[in-house]
């Protein structure tokens, strides 16, 4: 894949904006209602029997699913159920002992674990993103906020300082960080700001697929609401596909289109998020849902 320039990225954003601004027909006659999208659409990610165990029922086993463009898939379950192991296997960080993960890059299917390390790295800094629970793991703490945001663009060949800086300023604004903080290092930021910076750093290259590991996990509730709101809007505006690990079912309800519930390394229930939360079928899911405190 040829490296994208900063220019094409900005254009692509302008184009996606323009698409969203186009008016849709007012009526719902059959001529104007779009044909069902699933008829032609090709999946983005496919997991087949993915297994990686560290002990009996520790890790993940026999996980299969298909993710389509624009879908947000939540992985829910309690600590130790294998959510993070599965996420690591899906994103190519961890080699499964059985099964396959395939990614469709727009032209071909790639076996995520069989492509070379350099191809996988390219994927991770262009078409993919990975938002860590702890922003320290996803940011470069010693360089400025602006440099954190610009890094992916530079890795893709952008060299024009003015444009890199402009992209950084735009993204700071998108994630509600004062643009004047562009030259500060993340060390001087609060936890919520760091998380928002990590989101900007990942999304600046307009990835197609983003993995998120408890993105609001370590944050205060008031800070959490702001990040959820931000993620919800960005996911929609950029038409991102997301695999989101969360143990918080309220977060899943807000962000995920569909949900897979994990227990002791296995998927026990999968489906539309509303359905899993309103009409859970599996005893474990019923227990989880009925254990939520309401305020």
């Amino acid at each position, binding site marked *: 894949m040829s490296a994208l320039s900063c220019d094409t990225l900005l254009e692509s954003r302008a184009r996606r904006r323009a698409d969203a601004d186009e008016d849709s027909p007012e009526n719902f006659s059959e001529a104007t209602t779009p044909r069902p999208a699933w008829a032609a659409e090709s999946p983005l990610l496919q997991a087949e029997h993915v297994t990686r165990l560290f002990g009996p029922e520790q890790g993940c086993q026999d996980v299969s699913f298909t993710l389509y463009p624009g879908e947000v898939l939540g992985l829910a379950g309690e600590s130790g159920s294998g959510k993070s192991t599965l996420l690591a296997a899906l994103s190519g960080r961890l080699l499964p002992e059985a099964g396959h993960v395939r990614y469709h890059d727009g032209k071909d299917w790639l076996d995520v674990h069989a492509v070379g390390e350099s191809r996988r790295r390219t994927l991770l800094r262009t078409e993919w993103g990975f938002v860590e629970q702890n922003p320290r793991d996803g940011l470069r703490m010693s360089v400025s906020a602006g440099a954190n945001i610009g890094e992916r663009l530079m890795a893709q060949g952008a060299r024009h300082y003015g444009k890199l800086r402009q992209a950084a300023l735009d993204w700071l604004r998108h994630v509600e960080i004062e643009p004047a903080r562009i030259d500060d290092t993340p060390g001087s930021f609060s936890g919520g700001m760091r998380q928002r910076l990590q989101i900007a750093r990942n999304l600046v290259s307009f990835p197609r697929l983003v993995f998120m590991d408890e993105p609001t996990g370590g944050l205060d509730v008031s800070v959490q609401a702001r990040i959820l709101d931000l993620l919800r809007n960005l996911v929609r505006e950029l038409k991102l596909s997301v695999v989101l690990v969360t143990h918080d079912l309220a977060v899943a309800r807000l962000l995920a289109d569909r949900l897979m519930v994990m227990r002791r390394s296995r998927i026990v229930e999968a489906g539309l998020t509303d359905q899993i939360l309103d009409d859970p079928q599996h*005893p474990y899911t019923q227990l989880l849902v009925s254990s939520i405190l309401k305020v």
Partner: protein
Amino acid sequence: MDAILKVSGIGKRFVLHQAQSAVLTVLESISFALFPGECLVLSGHSGAGKSTLMRILYGNYLASRGSIRIRHGGEWLEMAGAEPRQTLALRRHTIGYVSQFLRVIPRVTALDVVMEPALLRGCARKTAQSKAEALLTRLNIPERLWHLAPGTFSGGEQQRINIARGFIAPWPLLLVDEPTASLDETNRQVVLDLIAEAKAADSAIIGIFHDRSAREAIASRFLNLESARAHTGGESFHAA
């Protein structure tokens, strides 16, 4: 004119694993077809399964048996066993739902809540916003509330926000669950007018109304869920 919805033999049993796997049968075998421009009113006492049927039709509950076919973009789609993205596409373009209670999301303003279904369909922000403002005005929500998150609004205000959200886009099939429940007379009439306009524009509507005069003003026909169950001789409870 062709039907928009064909429901045949749907039933719903809840298995409560946290309560010694008690089985609760709420719907036995419901069948009906619905045509554009019709309003079907669900009747039956509290607990007869009216809201359960609505949630099944919207995909929040899984039917235990039977078939639900909906005309979507010129094709019939079977909801039983549909993939999440199919159900979501239905919700984007074909089925609207005014639930009893507004789901409040922190930081999201009343105006954004109302505009969302139009934006999800690809409507321009400006157009969506002027439509939302017109609806909020019509439903007597004061302008000073438009840019606030509805978390602190009164029950009646939240309900009207929910109604504005439901009517911002035209739906081939619209589900309304007690839309007039906590409204004063003026706003109740606005809601009945909105429903009548949707009907006139060929939306098919399924509604639950406790208010008898509302029911009679709007219904094209009724579906009594108790007699539907009585016909099949079902029982409400079984011990597992």
